[in-house]
């Protein structure tokens, strides 16, 4: 070895050793990001950053559909619908990541225009750059769901045509499925007599979750509804949790969401069914979770 080569190696090697270990080692991105903080928008942004940034989920030119819960004619402090700032932050991030178009829609339970307006989501998402659309009966099409129980059902085509789906549910209690989180949120993407699904709700939400397969699930637990669900009605029915849970695995997100209500994930029938179906894992001890505070 010549002296010149030795010196060169020394410099290069020294530089390499100076770099943080993560760059060369296999990156270990957490499966679940749990971020707590005062600002709904900031914790949403941080959660996505923890997961590796929005460009991990959204490609340039994608048509993205963000699906919040806009089910009820309730203002944000009632925690019946997704926090508008969380929705707006995701819309903005998707556009920053190069999405061609971001649509925000939900098949509401109360009158659509009232839900869109009073939830604050229409205005927030629109000013973040999204197309906020009412669902349109003309766009319903009967589709093969291939579920254990649901074989076929009417689905709004906007959800099928989107390149990427981002599910943004709000954490609430429910008297039948005990909690309503990400998987149950897909009831807002379908038409038909949705209320019949309550006769076998756990299987129904798993079948729908398997059908829609979001690129990302972001659970809004900024304000959770712990009583009188799923629409509440008093601010005292809600509790500030100031948290957002994000992940690719919809089952893990819901499992974490259950813990806000002092419910063990294994107690929830739909999570067990979902894991058996291969949608994800609910045993949180097996999930790489990163918690942060902003």
């Amino acid at each position: 070895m010549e002296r010149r080569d030795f010196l060169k190696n020394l410099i290069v090697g020294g530089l390499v050793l100076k770099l943080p270990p993560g760059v060369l080692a296999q990156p270990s991105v957490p499966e679940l990001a749990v971020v707590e903080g005062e600002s709904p928008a900031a914790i949403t942004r941080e959660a996505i950053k923890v997961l590796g940034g929005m460009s991990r989920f959204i490609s340039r030119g994608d048509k993205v559909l963000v699906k919040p819960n806009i089910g009820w004619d309730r203002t944000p402090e009632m925690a019946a619908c997704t926090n508008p700032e969380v929705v707006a932050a995701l819309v903005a991030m998707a556009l920053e990541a190069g999405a061609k178009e971001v649509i925000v829609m939900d098949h509401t339970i109360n009158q659509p225009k009232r839900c869109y307006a009073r939830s604050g989501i229409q205005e927030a998402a629109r000013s973040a750059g999204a197309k906020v659309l009412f669902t349109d009966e003309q766009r319903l099409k009967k589709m093969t769901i291939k579920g254990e129980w649901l074989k076929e059902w009417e689905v709004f085509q906007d959800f099928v045509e989107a390149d990427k789906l981002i599910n943004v549910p709000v954490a609430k209690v429910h008297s039948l499925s005990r909690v309503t989180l990400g998987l149950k949120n897909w009831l807002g993407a379908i038409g038909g007599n949705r209320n019949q699904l309550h006769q076998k709700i756990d299987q129904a939400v798993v079948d729908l979750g398997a059908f829609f397969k979001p690129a990302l699930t972001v659970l809004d637990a900024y304000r959770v509804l712990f009583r009188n669900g799923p629409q509440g009605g008093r601010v005292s029915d809600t509790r500030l949790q100031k948290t957002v849970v994000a992940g690719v695995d919809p089952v893990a997100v819901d499992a974490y969401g259950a813990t806000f209500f002092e419910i063990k994930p294994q107690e929830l029938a739909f999570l067990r069914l979902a894991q058996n179906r291969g949608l994800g894992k609910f045993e949180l001890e097996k999930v790489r979770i990163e918690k942060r505070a902003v």
Partner: protein
Amino acid sequence: MKRERSKKYFWLQRLRILTQAGFFLLFFVLFLQTHYPGEDYLKITVERFFHFDPLLLLATSIASRAIFAALLLSLITVAATLLFGRFVCGWLCPLGAVHQFFSFIFKKTRLLKPARDDEASLAPKYLILFVVLAATLLSLNLVGYLDPLSFLYRSFAVFISPLLNLGLAQSGNLAYGLGLKSLGQAISQTAGNLALNGIFQNALLIGVFFLLAVLLNTRKERFWCRYLCPAGALLAIFSRFNLFKLKIDPDKCINCHLCSIHCQTNARPYPVGEWRSPECIYCETCAAICPTAAISFPLRWQAEKMKGVNLDRRRVLLTSITGLVLAPIFKISPLRRRPSPALIRPPGALAEPEFLSRCVKCGECMKVCPTNALHPALTEAGPEGVWTPVLVPRIGYCEYYCSLCTQVCPTGAIRELTVEEKVTVKIGTAWVDKNRCLPYALGKPCIVCEEHCPVSPKAIQLIKVDTLTPEGVLATNLAPFVNVDACIGCGICENKCVVQDLPAIRVSSVGEQRSSHNQLVLPVFEEQDELKT
């Protein structure tokens, strides 16, 4: 002699047509604006037209023995009519514009051929007016059936609105079918924002009345305005001075009768001295059509002897008595003995007798209701309540945080409420039908009604219920139990119940806050509890 039509009156006629179109457009825009505007309170007074209608002021004030302040605006109409005659009918009335438009169409298509000497009496509208006013003395308010604004608005709200909605949906469907996705999207979003109600009970009946009124224009020009309109009759009575007076220049007149043939209301501009000024609506047709420009309407201050329609005293007396006799007949109804379970009134509705004395059946509340819950009654409210609003939970429910129907009532039959006040108003009570309810009857899980109950804490609570199935298994499920004190009767439970034909939970009017006698006597239960302990 030189034959030339008057340029001035030609343009005045055009101006009149333009004004009519403008006012009809205003009416239609306000009609479309009668919907949820994206915030809790309507910023514009969408029902403003009604406040300028003196017939509504007169009839509802007498019938209800109270004056609704906003209606006092109609005194402006009265003052203007005193001075200038019935120009309101010819220039401003939106129903008049509709009739004028169709009369014009029917004339062009030869479906209507105006006669030369039309001797048909113009008296019926006055007689209708006297019947209506006499009935109000006994608190019977019949004014809404033929009041032109109520008639037009009701027809639009209940009949035209569903047609528009259907048209929008179908054109959206067509756009998608042709692959024009963005057009389809634009149409569906417009429909979502307009929130037109798509279904009404009795829509066909109300539609038939409207079409009939339109088709009557094939018999006579402006048939409605000539023979039927009680508001026109009232204005005719008020038109005392008619400052712009018809004048025929005898030197120019060639006695062609054109003016008389084409007079929209048969006010007889010709022969000289025959002009019935209270019938004249100042449409300017006669002056514009006159081939020699012999007709003009110069301003003349002095009052002249009016030549009105000949209403002999006997007929006036007879019709007034008819009105007085009608009142008790209209009030014969089993509802006076027992309240109807289906008669669920909108929140803010006054107690039934006061409500009926004020409601003019205009349909404003039905139009504004965001969930299509309010419908024109046929039999639910008795003979005097036909077309009054009734909440039909199976079609729509009362949206919890919405007080829109209370904001648009033009006569105060529905008291204006803030959203905070409205959520406390009880309009009925929900009852579980255990023979149809899934957990009770079939042992299957379903909590849909509980989930939708908007009251907090919920008026529908869940109790554990055991149902023995034929297999001998006890199926334990959560089942609904209504807390009647907390229930406000909004009807969302009935609306969302999975049992489609006859829901397993239904709202009836009992417990409605506006009634003192349509109540359950709950304290009895409490006494029994005390006896037990």
